[in-house]
């Protein structure tokens, strides 16, 4: 039913698409795009912390390089959310952590609770080496005690 009839128009469009997409395909992994609302209540320069507040909830994820997908170690990821201990805007709701040798990060923080209608977290990569990315992942259930978010960063 969705068979495309091969006409001069589709042939030209197909050829154009092939040449346009090829270089990206050769590069492999596409960079993560900033999500809508991701930067809301962002506070630049949140300190690197052992954990945010009393903990009990885990924000996890990975950071890789666009193109070859190589894990990026030592990258600073900032995390904030509305939790049982504070609003998104509160300074105490913000913290940052660094990725390990495998490009993975794990930051303990208070339980995220629904705010503005959805249980969600915020993450930012905002250092100089790569393009800035803001994420706003949703929890599938407000009872979840962990949330994952993955970055694929584009070198500046």
């Amino acid at each position, binding site marked *: 039913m969705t068979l495309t009839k091969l006409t001069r128009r589709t042939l030209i469009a197909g050829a154009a698409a092939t040449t346009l997409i090829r270089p990206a395909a050769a590069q492999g992994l596409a960079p993560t795009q900033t999500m*809508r*609302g991701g930067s809301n209540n962002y506070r630049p320069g949140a300190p690197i912390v052992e954990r945010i507040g009393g903990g009990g909830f885990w924000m996890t994820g990975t950071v890789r390089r666009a193109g070859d997908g190589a894990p990026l170690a030592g990258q600073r990821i900032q995390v904030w959310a509305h939790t049982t201990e504070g*609003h998104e805007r509160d300074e105490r709701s913000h913290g940052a952590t660094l990725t390990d040798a495998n490009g993975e990060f794990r930051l303990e923080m208070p339980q995220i*609770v629904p705010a503005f209608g959805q*249980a969600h977290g915020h993450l930012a990569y905002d250092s100089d080496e790569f393009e800035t990315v803001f994420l706003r992942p949703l929890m599938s259930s407000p009872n979840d005690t962990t949330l994952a978010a993955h970055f694929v960063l584009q070198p500046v």
Partner: protein
Amino acid sequence: MRPVLIWGAFLVLILWPFAMALGSPQLAWREPVYIAAGFAGVLAMMLLVAQPLLAAGLLPGLPAMRGRRLHRWVGGTLVVLIVVHVGGLWITSPPDVIDALLFVSPTPFSAWGVIAMWAIFATAVLAIWRRHMRFQTWRAIHMTLACVIVLGCIVHAVQIDGTMAPVSKFVLSIGLLAVSVPIIGRRFIDQRERRL
């Protein structure tokens, strides 16, 4: 007996979701301004159920004339509640409200709330201007706005994970539809028949 049943059903329909919201665990993790903003929204949805009933004079003891005067007061209260709702949310998290007002919010329910908000403001302005308009024109616009407000409010509320408990919120939405559709529909039919 009938008046007691009607008032009883009406009060249970609007007060049950309110009581459930008052008991929400989410309140423990919110600042007073955020709580006030949330409850302004809950109260607005409760009062919205009364609006078609008051306009049609269907609540016992509040026939057409008295009902309609109260309908106007409740309408004015809705405007105030919406201002408190949006203002309180703005104080709690300005960027989220700015996103919503500009229709670029990541949350699908925000746009519906903003549409209902503008429809309520437009209804209030038109109500003030009513005497300067042809009655049939005014009523057609008023009823169209009423549809937008009811639908916008319901689609906004049901998608929110907030202080309102899902079941009571769902029942309140069904109740709001159940009173609005026949009453608003009746006005549209009247209008068409008069034109024929």
